[in-house]
């Protein structure tokens, strides 16, 4: 199979090492520029199966606020982001909402749920009370 070398910036910690990594057969053949093991792991993930946590909002009916913030429970494949955003764009949830309540299960076929990032009570009742 083909061998591919790429440059990327590691974001695992604030240092931001500039990595040069070579991938073949979805294996990390060589990595330079990392100052720790986590950088190597990041390079493999990022080049073979990059993932991102998606955060967004979803409309709410009858809630204290018109929107509730949501997130994917775990990072999802990067190339699914657009689909995830489209899929949740149509959702309208009813208040009350509990924090981490599932908003969309197995979103875009990723096997990962979209969950609420906060609790949301009905109109006129902020969560603090």
């Amino acid at each position, binding site marked *: 199979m083909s061998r591919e070398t790429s440059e990327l910036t590691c974001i695992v910690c604030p240092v931001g090492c500039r990595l040069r990594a070579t991938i073949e057969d979805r294996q990390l053949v060589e990595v330079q520029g990392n100052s720790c093991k986590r950088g190597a792991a990041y390079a493999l993930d990022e080049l073979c199966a990059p993932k991102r946590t998606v955060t967004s*909002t979803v*409309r709410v*009916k009858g809630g204290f606020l*018109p*929107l509730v913030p949501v997130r994917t429970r775990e990072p999802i494949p990067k190339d699914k982001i657009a689909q995830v*955003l*489209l899929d949740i*764009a*149509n*959702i*309208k949830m009813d208040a009350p909402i509990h924090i981490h309540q599932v908003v969309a299960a197995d979103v875009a076929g990723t096997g990962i749920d979209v969950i609420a990032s906060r609790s949301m009570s009905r109109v006129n009742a902020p969560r603090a009370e």
Partner: protein
Amino acid sequence: MVGTGIARELSRYDVRVVLVEKRADVAFGTTKANTALVHAGYDAEPGTWKARLNVRGNALYPKVCAELGVSYKNTGSLVVALAEEQTVHLHELRARGETNGVPGLEVIPRERVLAIEPGVSPSVAAALWAPTGGITSPWELAIAYAENAVANGVELLLSSPVIGIDMRGGRAVSVRCPGVVIYTQFVVNAAGIWADDIERMINRDDFEITPRRGEYYLFDRRVGHLVSRPLFPVPSQATKGIVVAPTVDGNLIAGPNALLVGDKGDLATTAAGLAEVIDGARKLVPGLPVRESITNFAGLRAVAVPVGDFVIGASPGVPNFVNAAGIQSPGLTAAPAIAEAVRDILADAGLVLVEKPTFNPVRERPTRFSELGRDEQSALIEKNPLWGHIICRCETVTEAEIVEALHRPVPCTTLDGVKFRTRAGAGRCQGGFCGPRVVDIIHRELDTPMEHVTKKGGGSYILSGPSKGPLLEQAACRCLADAGCNAARDDGPDDGQVCGRAGAEDVGEGVGRGDHGNLGEQDVCRIETREREEVGGHAHGRV
């Protein structure tokens, strides 16, 4: 300012008056972007309209502002000579001022200047002290004039640019705006920088308006104490120079520079112009801290070329068309006197003036939470809880005041309109905190969709649409119909937005009894409203 002042003056009489404004609110032209000074009157050439009306206007200011509940401070003003050789100009100004009838002028020595203005440059040699100089709030006054005029029967048409004036027998007979025809006996042209365009509609070409742009810095109230009264440099041929002055709200203002511009919409600030303002301001007040500036802006002055003076009078060719044009500095100061002068000119031209017994010169100053003591504040909150909800943190403006401003006799529908009436958004964060809240209140109180709320009318929308809009357009989904556009609150873009922008400002005049012209017996001034064209969709584009 000029148009609203004239309308209010005429509302004293039994005359039907229509005040026509091309923009979404009064005061949205030159009135909102100037130095806000009430000049003493030593600058203008003796014998000119400027000279006469400046002094007369200055004398009227305390009474007008008191009647209308408008901020005004008689601070006096100083023309500062920064070198010995400039002192001769101070004496020239004093002499000219005395000729113009300005009271109390005195050239005072350096020590006295420093004693009353410790922030002034140490190189001050002397100064001309003008005790009748002062400061005011120009938009407050224009709004107050308009409100008092409306309360006394004047009809106000906003967002109504004049697109044509019909003539018959050498007289103006009707004024046309989109969807409206105003049949009238007299027309007053107070159209600011578009006054020459209006004049051309009656096929006259007596003057041309060249806009002169001036840039300003506004400083935080924290440094408002740096000067106590307007400080002028010794003036040049063209301009009074870059001034440093307090504002009635406690800010400091510096400016303007002066540059003739070709485009009447050219309200851009420039790096060079702003630098020029700071340079000039620092000559007068070396300690002026630029980092305390909260905003900068530009205003256009209407300079009548080749005349140079105000153009006030009936048009030589069209006797029932009266100009009040070319009102550059000292226009703000002269406004009350311009109103009187135009009234007199109209009377000479045949307008019958019978005083209205019902005329009420008083317009109550809107209550401002920030101006009250704690006890008064508590009493208000008791009556209406919205007085206890602070919306604008920087200027301590409550929801009650904003709601009230949105329901006053002169319609207020824009973010800037709210700002000029309540001070919300005029503070150091410049609407960063209160902006979204004010937009929401406008939406709620005026039943306007959020994306139709504008900064200053026309196409100046704040929000482009609900979030996820573009995404929803892409998503092929049967939920599209009820999911999108925050259905509960938005009505979509078909709720009859006001149309018709661009064009020129005008004042339509009613007529006294007895001179009917072509009008029916009962009507002295008839307004015909055609069906207004709907502007489809979102009012984005500029006309």
